[in-house]
């Protein structure tokens, strides 16, 4: 979409006004700084998804809409998770982070902060795997998506 003040609120407003749910929403400028790219995760039957796409396309600030679920794609999310890591659980946390290919990016005497990237379900699985180890805080970015294969998302000319 156009990298303009208000573009994001138009999208968010559309979802709330029409009662569509937003599971996650992630937006940042692209290489072309007049554009920003939003990855939005929503749920609905075929007809609702079709309406959502049409309604998004109607927004003047939206340049292009692509339904990632239509084709093979990669979904990634970043999670920063701070867990209690005391004497007895320090090793266990370290080991679990290894298994899930997380990185410990901050350490204190009673905690580890782990950075982890993956599809949402993998991040969920890690949180589950922590079991009884107390979680202090979780921050998740929301999903980002990109199509598999050589082709990129083309932007229409003015």
């Amino acid at each position, binding site marked *: *979409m*156009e990298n303009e*003040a*208000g573009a994001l*609120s*138009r999208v968010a*407003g559309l979802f709330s*006004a029409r009662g569509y749910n937003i599971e996650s929403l992630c937006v940042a400028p692209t290489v072309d700084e007049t554009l920003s790219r939003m990855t939005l995760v929503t749920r609905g039957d075929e*007809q609702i998804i*079709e*309406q959502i796409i*049409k*309604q998004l*396309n*109607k*927004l*003047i*600030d*939206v*340049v*292009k809409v692509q339904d990632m679920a239509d084709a093979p794609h990669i979904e990634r999310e970043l999670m920063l998770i701070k867990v209690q890591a005391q004497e007895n659980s320090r090793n266990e946390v370290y080991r679990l982070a290894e298994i899930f290919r997380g990185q410990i990016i901050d350490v204190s005497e009673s905690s580890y902060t782990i950075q982890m990237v993956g599809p949402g379900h993998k991040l969920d699985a890690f949180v589950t795997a922590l079991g009884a180890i107390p979680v202090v805080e979780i921050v998740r970015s929301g999903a980002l998506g990109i199509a598999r294969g050589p082709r990129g998302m083309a*932007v*229409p*000319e*003015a």
Partner: protein
Amino acid sequence: MPFGLALRRKTQAGFDAFGSINLKERKRVELSGGQILVECLKAEGVDAVFGYPGGAVLHIYDALFQQEQVKHILVRHEQGAVHMADGYARATGKPGVVLVTSGPGATNAVTGIATAHMDSIPLIVITGQVPTSLIGNDAFQEVDNVGITRPCVKHNFLVKDVRDIAITMKKAFYIATTGRPGPVVVDIPKDVTDPRVTIPFDYPASVSLRSYHPTVKGHTGQIRKAIDLIINAERPMIYSGGGVILGGASAQLTRFARLLNYPITNTLMGLGAYPASDRQFLGMLGMHGTYEANMGMHHCDVLIAIGARFDDRVTGNLAKFCPTAKIVHIDIDPASISKNVVVDVPIVGSVKSVLEEMLPLIEDAGGAKQPEALTAWWAQIAQWRDMRCLDFKTNGDVIKPQYVVQKVWEITQGDAYVTSDVGQHQMWAAQYYGFDKPNRWINSGGLGTMGFGLPAALGVKFAYPDEEVVCVTGEGSIQMCIQELSTALQYHLPVKVVSLNNRYLGMVRQWQEFFYSGRYAMSYMEALPDFVKLAESYGHVGMRIEKASDVEGALREAFAMRDRLVFMDFQTDPLENVYPMVPAGAGLNEMILV
């Protein structure tokens, strides 16, 4: 430099006596934001702005004041300004232009903007804003105009730099008038129109947006598929709506229906797109549609939807809607297609272009292919028509509202511009004033805004001073924008107000009678003013008509006063209902008839 001086100097160099730019000097002339805005309006061919001044737009008003090409109509309430511009737009097909101040000026305009949005009416609404340096400070008369109007506009802009005014206005007009039309708000902070800041002015000849490319031409394959379905129909029905009027395609629609000899119904917004007096016309459909139109919908095998959006007032219970039909849908907005009703052959494009492409195909195919089935279908329709669902009982000297509308039709020879407010009177106007031409029936369908009728009528009258303009209203609705009677006097806009005064919020009362066992909660209009004196105090003519036998004479007398606004207060049957009616949850074949 002191402000007045700078301005005076500028108005001397490069401007003629009327404040128009001298073209030869255009390149050299530097203009302020206010002047640029006015020049943009001129470049777009705008002849009138409906508005109301205030602090944030004073620079713009000053620029308007110093020229004569763009007239300004001073309303009495900003809602009135938007409805006037809206009426003007609906009658002429050109965008209406509004100018209001920040804060309360803008919030007062919101109802009008939402009204236009729901009915896809092209408007440019310029709202003043506090200076850019104060935005976000809870400054005097600050509201987030862009935020407040976002859900009820086609698009909106905040212009933060004088250099962006021209391109933004160009985009605004382009967006408002193309594709599915709609209102565009342009919010302009006061410093952006400061007369001390001047820049060279150049209005872009055209504009293109990478994210906005409305589809005009229909997909050829889809059109062929549709034609195949259409010409082979046995029980066809054409259901057309406001899109035909917005798209100026009434001639094409008429040709289409005639070529096929298919029955046609119009939505409330589509009335006039097909001549009501024509044999093939079945009347309006939907909640208060005719028996024949609704039965035709229910039993058809091919439904051809043209510029209509399957509104819930039209479909009734979706589960029971057109159970046996294959549906073709032509609409310029892909989001209108398969939104409420899933259709079989969608065609995205403008009605005009798509119908023009269809007509020769139908001709080449030799027209409709099922003449026998069609004859039987017309015979069935004739039986439904025999129910005479719009007949009403008269009762001595009690004035029946339907009768008043019929008489208005007779006296104006069915050729007036008729606006209405919202309620029973609106439905009676729609049912009993047969519109033979498009753009003549002007009402708020989507939002259903009481208060729309009078200002809309004034907007129409401003556009067409020589045409007869009638506002059919109720004693409830008229009081929502009655202050515009004053505007009517100031600008000499002699419309005729036909008030069907039933002393009730009649539409509300009807629902209470049907669905709340007659508990008339707050629907009786007590303490009504003396409308005759009220009209007179505004400088107009007032008439009160109490007997059926006086209706025709009063109307003739009123319409003979070509030069005066006449307010006719008809004391109508308080308990009359609008029939037929499809109650909530019912199918179109389940009408209450009398």
